[in-house]
């Protein structure tokens, strides 16, 4: 099976509450909170598409879109 390739971090800024859970647990330190306390993918090139951020977000505010998916 080919490794999933990242297309984008789809972030819903309206729903993100800046709790920092995704930032804290990302194994590759891809994510950061910006000055508005909303999550941003600061280092998308390091993302391994494990989707742990998507699964742990209490607000359904971040989704990992991979090349195969669409």
């Amino acid at each position: 099976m080919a490794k999933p390739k990242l297309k984008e971090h789809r972030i819903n800024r309206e729903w993100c509450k800046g709790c920092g859970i995704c930032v804290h647990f990302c194994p590759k330190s891809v994510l950061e909170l910006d000055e508005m306390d909303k999550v941003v993918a600061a280092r998308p090139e390091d993302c391994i598409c494990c989707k742990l951020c998507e699964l742990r977000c209490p607000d359904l505010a971040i989704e990992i879109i991979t090349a195969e998916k669409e």
Partner: protein
Amino acid sequence: MAIKDYIRERFFPHLWCPGCGHGIVMNGMLHAIEKLGMSRNEIVMVSGIGCSSRISCYVDFHTLHTIHGRALAFATGVKLGLPELNVIVPMGDGDALAIGGNHFIHAARRNIDITAIVMNNRVYGMTGGQFSPLSGYGTKATTAPYKNIDHDFDIAQLAMAAGASFVARTTAYHVKQMTDIIRKAILHEGFSVVEILTQCPTYFGRKNKLGDAAEMMEWFKDFTTPIGSKAKKENDDLIERGIFVQKEIPEYCEEYDKIIEHAMKGS
């Protein structure tokens, strides 16, 4: 179906506080339902009162938002009337085990095919952080400013003793295990209890100086262990997670149907 197809987007962002574990449970439950490939029309969600019970507002299934502690009683009625539907009851620890404690043990005893998801955050969040039956000895709450002198009980052991045929525990940190357990609990034919340790950073976390949501989740990682692990033998304080019981015993609705059939034949 995608996760977003199972929710009522018009009510988002939801009202839970930043980092509340209930959102993670909703997320995991939706992933479990997506994996099962169920349609929205096959599921009924019945809830009572509390922060956790708000889940029924956000998911686009058949939903009933009922009264405090009595969700299982309403759910029993729904299941007996429409046994072909999958009934899921999300509850908080107080809703399930204090206000609704009697409904809980009797639903377990009857082994009715309902999936009870008990989100244990060890506090009454919605009403302002009062201690719950799961807060535990020595913890603090708005109603226990010095310390709580009530002991808690073990939800999994209680459920097993009351006769539940599927009993499991996981945490808001262990999201993959959570999804897997909820999926199995929904498939199980009988009363399933899934206890999920979740964080309430606003009350339980703040009162007990446990840090932010992520730190509380780190605690779930550090202080839980798979059932029967070596770590548990070495440190009995660790909380076990996994499936404790999964057994086949006669299910209530099926038994009830047999009685109806028997009665219709006449004696």
